[in-house]
């Protein structure tokens, strides 16, 4: 599903180039659950944003479902992103001024969907994630765990093939974190490919492969399907 070949990312600074990612080669097959780990500043989040097509300023090659992402125009990349990818963030990033139900509608509103269909999907997500009772609340009326639950529901509501999660349990206490990871496991079992950035060994254990980053280099891969 994903092939990265010699992907590099750097910033020009006064002292020359500062590399964030160095010659990253990575293959992710459909249905995998990959955890990216590494110390702070090792390039995990940057890697995730390149994979999520939110960052196009990188060197090297990126193939997604056999399409050469590095050659696509901004518009084509955005279309690909819209169709296949869902995002979950550490600090949830719900829109404060919208209710739970409206937050769930946001991704659907960008996908030419009939109103009835969109409403049905929202109702289904509310039901599936057991947040029907919270549908008219605003984010600041929910606990952190509930907010992240809504964020996950929002990320998968349009049934993406790839779910990218940046420290999804970073702001949650352990019980809430466990629930979210169980949810990820279920989604993965149902066929969603997941790539998560995490510091937690426990969270990483929900996946089937770990990619270790250090100073922008992939230093180790372990688990099923690891390259080396």
């Amino acid at each position, binding site marked *: 599903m994903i092939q990265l070949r010699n992907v590099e990312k750097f910033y020009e600074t006064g002292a020359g180039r500062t590399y964030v990612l160095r010659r990253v080669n990575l293959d992710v097959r459909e249905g995998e659950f990959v955890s990216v780990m590494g110390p702070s500043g090792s390039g995990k*989040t940057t890697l995730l*944003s390149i994979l*999520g097509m*939110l*960052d196009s300023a990188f060197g090297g090659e990126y193939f997604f479902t056999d399409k050469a992402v590095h050659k696509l125009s901004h*518009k084509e990349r*955005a279309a690909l*992103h*819209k169709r296949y990818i869902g*995002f979950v*963030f550490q*600090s949830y*990033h*719900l*829109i*404060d*001024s919208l209710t739970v139900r409206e937050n769930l509608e*946001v*991704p659907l*509103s*960008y*996908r030419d969907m009939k109103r009835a269909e969109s409403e049905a999907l929202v109702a289904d997500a509310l039901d599936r994630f057991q947040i029907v009772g919270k549908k008219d609340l605003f984010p*600041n009326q929910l606990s952190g765990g509930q907010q992240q639950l809504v964020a996950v529901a*929002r*990320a998968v509501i*349009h049934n993406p093939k790839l779910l990218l999660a940046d420290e999804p349990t970073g702001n949650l206490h352990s019980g809430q974190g466990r629930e979210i990871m169980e949810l990820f496991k279920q989604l993965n079992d149902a066929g969603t490919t997941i790539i998560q950035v995490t510091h937690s060994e426990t969270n990483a254990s929900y996946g089937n492969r770990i990619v270790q980053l250090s100073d922008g280099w992939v230093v180790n891969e372990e688990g099923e399907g690891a390259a080396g």
Partner: protein
Amino acid sequence: MRTLWQDIRFGARTLLKSPGFTLVAVASLAVGIGANTTIFSLVNAALLRPLPLVRDESRLVDVNRTRPNGDRFAQVSYPDYLYFRDHADVFDGLAAYDFTPLSLSAGGEAERVRGMLASANYFDVMGVKPARGRFLLPDEDRAPGGAGVAVISHQLWQRRFGGGEVVGRQVSINGHPFTVVGVAPEGFKSPFIYLAPDVYLPLTAQAQAMPGSDLLGDRGAGWLGLRGRLKDGASVEQAQATLSVLAGQLQTEFADVERGQGASVRPIGHVPGEVRSAVVGFMLTLSVVVGLVLLVACANVAGMQLARAFARRREVAIRTALGATRGRVVRQLLTESLLLFLVGGGLGILLAVWMNDLLMAFRPAGTLAVEFNLDVDWRVLSFTLAVSFLTGLVFGLAPALTASNPDVSATLKDAAPRGGGRASRLRGAFVVGQIAISMVLLVAAALCVQSLRSAARINTGFEAEGVYLATVDLSLQGYDETRGREFFRRLKERAAALPGIESATLARSVPLSGLAFGERVRVEGHEPPAGEPPPFVLSNTVDEDYLRTLKVPLLAGRDFRATDAEGAPRVAVINETMAARYFGGREAVGKHFTLLAAPTLRGVGRREDVGVEVVGVVADGRYYTLGEAPQPFMYLPLAQNYGGMLTLHVRAPKDAAAPVLAAVRREASAVDPEVPLTGVMPMTEAVGFSLIPLRLAATVVGALGLFGLLLAALGVYGVVAYTVGSRTREIGIRVALGAQAGDILRLFMRHGVVLAAVGVCLGTAGALALTRFLASLLYGVSATDPVAFAVVALVLAAVALVACLVPARRATKVDPMVALRYE
């Protein structure tokens, strides 16, 4: 006090740290406050400023006659004035005056000057001292003839006599010799602040000043304005009581002419009583218009301050956490607001000085000239200071109150909701208000412009282009009718013989120039209902060739010809409407009607009924205003209806104004160098007179409307830019969730478009309510003209869209990863 100084210093520093915000805010306020200062300078000059040099103005009163018909501002006859002057013991002095144009020559070319007939005690009552020589003596104002003495103004002394020795000098006024005995002090005006005569003659020189009339002995002719100086301790009420008694005595003694006439005494006003309400109304309208502009500017600045206040909530939270009370925080923010408005006010004054000069350019020229002192005095300064202070306080309060009440712990944890709901709504409301007000101003301007355009298309019934004018008033020169006729005959002949002149003629008035004459007529079979006066028909007295020179289409019969002379049967040419109304159309030729005798004043007026025959019918035209409905009009031959003041009309090539007018001046001077010419101008300029108010309105309202539009655009831009800034994180989330550039653009455009739509709707309602006050100015366009409304709404919508588009496009450029890390 120390904390206040701290507040001021901190406020100034904060403003200097945001030069962009400060510049835009100060500039908008300067224009808003400057426009108000300009109009206030006008109000100040016309209504509030004291008469320059006049001693103890509070003791001066105006005296008028009251008439049975309700007129409370009637003028006073000379015999009545003398009676009041000699019998009213409440006055230190009671002076009489009248303005009249004079022809002055003092070696060299004659010129028409602003004259005043004044009683000998006039200067004494006004309380001024001469700059040179002396004023009029009582003895010089006793016997008819005015003893041949004159006082001149300081301005005339400087301009005409170079400030040299003038006392004792002989001058010729209306052809009569006068000796200059004194010069009035510099800056002295008259009972009215904007009228300054050039020459003062004793009242008893009335016959020389107004040739052809003798008013001194006529108790029935009211022509004098009276101004009295109350004795110490005397009140206006006492003066009123005294004058009422004296008026009663006159009624008893001269029952035939004095019946029903009283007297009124009131404190002086700078504007003559009979037009005071119109002047005050005009000033009020102007004040409302500039007030609206100031409101737009204030709303704009308040909106910007709200945005800043929200952005500064962290600073306020820290201050609060460190122990600042809400009052203290509000004071700090208000101080900043006041600083901003006061600096804006200061620049506004400078702007007003410049705008006052521009305003003076609209002054009508010639003998109508008025003199306004629009200098900035303490009244204007106080006004501007008060306006700046009050607006700064009022419009600074909402932002200050909003910002001073943050959720401290949430703000410090950076967990407070973004977007500032209440502040946003308030800003939105300000922008809606700005758009609505701009809409009102722009609709008014659009209606004026459309009127000017339709005025240009109106068929006036004559062709002004290529016609050049020069007016001669022989009545001031001591010409009798025989000499006058000879003068005009020679002038017309010489003008007609000039190279390039197609035709030349004379007429008593120029259509659409603000002056029209008329007479009452009797037409057999068209008697008015009992108690109603006979119909009044506008008229012009014209020479042969008038119809040809002005290209007035002749529909039936003939033009005047040389045989329509003084002793010949009386004739008239009438227009279509008059022919249709009284004579069944073009068959009017050969029919008769009667010009009715009218009371004469100052030698003008028909002394007996005159029967005339209709010899021609011409097409209808516009005679007094461009917007008038077709109305009856008649032309009378000059040969049978002599007048001493006539305007020469010549037709020449269209672009020959300068040489033709110069040649006309030369020819007039060749006939008599002592006769001054006035109104020497192309006819297109003269007929533009009726459009002056419209042009003024279009210019003023248009400029202010455009300024309002600019501010409204800035307001929309500010609101949308601010929204984009405060929702950066949301943009990141939306992009991460699949939003594309178009989605983000629409999101923010919608916000601006809704504000613009609400503003336009409210503005439309406001304009519908207010533009009807313009209706009397408009030609050929209704005050609710849908085209003007639609065009302005579209322009406003387009400008608002562009103003939204700029920040909204910036929103689409937000890097989602940066936005999501931005906490």
